[in-house]
């Protein structure tokens, strides 16, 4: 399937295009917050105020695409989408001892709210699904789309991801040991040699169809694996490359989910073992960690394949030219691995 348009709200100036002109923002600390636009022109102001953050970011990123492209369905991946609202509702329950509560946060806290909200705003009565599977949510959404396009029941889809950093989920991750005690500038993240990582958020949206003409990039294949014993991961990566008719030397870039967690970054060595010639480019120094982090990687890779490159800097290394195949390898907390193979259209 082919990517025909993208939009991305993230901790980088990706939505307005400054990422490619002025360059990357080097975040510091443990929260890489999304740079949200003012949403003027894409969402009526009255509605923006009433939206939860995930619904707002998903809508803000998707509406410009939906205004331009007719789609037959909407598929999102999200795990922490709506968690701010969800926890506001839980707080009311606990702090008011199950008194009389307003349902707004309950409804907005449902992970399906962004995809349902987009359908509602655009009166789209086609296929609508939300994959909420921790670190594989975005890969699951892509595979759902791949199946639908293959079945020939849809022509064009909006597929994307959205995640938000909420105080509640941040605290849960912190007490569980998945956030760094303290974090310096992003450029130092991968050399930190400490446990935990930094959090990111935002929404990445894609218009996908089966037609190569005019496309940015091709999503050639997607695969997921889960399990605690990943001794043969390098072999699985090789199998994934060869089942797509490629040699491991054909992959130009391994877009790696390295996040600076000293306990689990070693798992990414499997990719380099499988493809020793590929350049390793990290992306969580730009976007932070989130369950759908690979959605932002997919945006980054598609843009690079289309020739859109950020100025070279401490966290934006040069991409090779020509750029034909990029493999996104992401794992989430060591248990769930996703592979997304993106290729040039020609």
């Amino acid at each position, binding site marked *: 399937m082919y990517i025909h348009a993208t939009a991305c709200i993230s901790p980088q100036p990706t939505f307005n295009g400054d990422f490619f002109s002025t360059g990357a923002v080097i975040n510091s600390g443990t929260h890489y917050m999304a740079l949200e636009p003012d949403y003027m022109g894409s969402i009526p102001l009255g509605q923006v105020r009433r939206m939860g953050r995930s619904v707002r970011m998903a809508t803000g990123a998707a509406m410009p695409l939906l205004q331009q492209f007719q789609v037959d369905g909407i598929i999102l991946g999200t*795990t922490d989408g709506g968690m701010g609202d969800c926890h506001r509702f*839980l707080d009311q329950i606990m702090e008011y001892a199950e008194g009389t*509560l*307003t349902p707004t946060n309950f409804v907005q806290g449902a992970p*399906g709210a962004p995809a349902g909200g987009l359908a509602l705003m655009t009166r789209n009565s086609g296929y609508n699904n939300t*994959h909420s599977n921790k670190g594989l949510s975005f890969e699951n959404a892509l595979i759902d789309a791949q*199946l639908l396009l293959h079945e020939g029941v849809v022509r064009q889809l909006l597929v994307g991801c959205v995640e938000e950093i909420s105080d509640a989920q941040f*605290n849960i991750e912190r007490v569980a040991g998945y956030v760094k005690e303290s974090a310096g500038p992003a450029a130092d993240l991968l050399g930190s040699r400490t446990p935990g990582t930094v959090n990111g958020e935002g929404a990445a949206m894609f218009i996908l169809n089966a037609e190569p003409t005019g496309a940015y990039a091709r999503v050639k294949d997607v695969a997921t694996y*889960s399990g605690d014993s990943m001794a043969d991961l390098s072999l699985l990566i090789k199998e994934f490359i060869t089942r797509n008719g490629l040699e491991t030397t054909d992959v130009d870039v391994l877009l790696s989910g390295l996040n600076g967690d000293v306990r689990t970054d070693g798992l990414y060595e499997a990719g380099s073992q499988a493809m020793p010639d590929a350049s390793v480019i990290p992306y969580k120094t730009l976007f932070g960690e989130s369950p759908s982090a690979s959605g932002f990687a997919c945006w980054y890779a598609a843009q690079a394949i289309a020739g859109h490159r950020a100025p070279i800097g401490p966290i934006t290394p040069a991409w090779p030219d020509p750029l034909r195949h990029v493999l996104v390898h992401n794992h989430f907390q060591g248990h769930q691995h996703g592979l997304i193979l993106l290729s040039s259209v020609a």
Partner: protein
Amino acid sequence: MSKVVVTGMGVVSAIGIGVPANLQRLRAAQSGIRLPEHVGTRYAEHMMMGEVEASDADLFAQLNLADTHGITRTELLAFMAFREAVAQAGLTDTQISASDTALISATTVGGMVQAQALYDDAHAISNATEFAASYRSGAHTLRLAQGYRMRGYTDTINTACSSSANAIMIGARLLKAGRARRVIVGGTDSLSKYTVNGFNALQILSDVPTRPFSADRKGLSLGEGAAYLVLEREDDLSERKALACVSGYANRCDAYHPSSMSPEAIGVIGAMTGALQVAGLAPSDIDHVNTHGTGTQNNDYTELFGLEQVLGTVPPFFSTKSYTGHTLAAAGAVEAVFSILSILHGEVWPSLHFTSPIEGLHHSPNTQMLAGLDIRHVMSNSFGFGGNCSSVIYSKL
């Protein structure tokens, strides 16, 4: 193309643990909706719910899990139903953990059933509780996968109350595309402070046991449960017998309101029509409808209106939510099991607590014990917040 068939199923609900126990209570027309004993909410004193008749300790004892750290009730229910499903299908441990075995599960409340622990962890009140890794949607799927050493494709769906219908649909599509050899699909949800208060805030909970499709219906009764089905391609079975096939399915969006459905039943009609198309069936081929039938004003009117639009004359239909309560993300899978039992035994059980028909509509739910029927095709509906509407058709082999 080879049919997608069901080779095993397991269910836990307010009317029993295991398929035989559930069937017995359906035949006896005995609801499981009562005052709950195990859910920690102040509404338990006066609000009837479909609670599984087992404490967490009972479930732990029945499961005998190697690792119990951080396991929630949502996961316990899932393990019970999963175990029954894979046993009936005759899957070996090696087959379950093979890389071509997929798991597609669904939940809404998930680990948030542990409300106090969640609150404490979310406010970083002290060190992490044992449940800190259990809250996120997807945690229960990972837990099942780890428990059974699964390493193939996993997915977790959260489209509210249509979640497990979508899980079943995705499982069938993975098999048809050849992306898996066998798929275990289903969902789980437990009664919780979070959902009781959520639906109460929406003012759609009934203070009496739910009365689906009755003019005097007062809302839904919440329930809990889990159900899993093993799906395979008929061509791969050789000697083994299948129970039924998944012949049609469709997912559409109502695109009308975040938490209620359009009076024109756009999504409902779209899902049912789409499922008939995939199955290659005419409306008159449907012999029985296992409705979403939540017992809310909005759902039951819209669903029955949609059924009349699509099917014309509606065959015997009922809502098993009058037995189990609304099991949320598990509902589509629980009702898949009941739909298949209807096919296997030629039975339709009575919808409970019905008093009088909805004004302006032309059909009433079945209130009799019907037996000896030849049920070839059952339509099962699931609708959820966000306008998510899904229909699945199960057919006799």
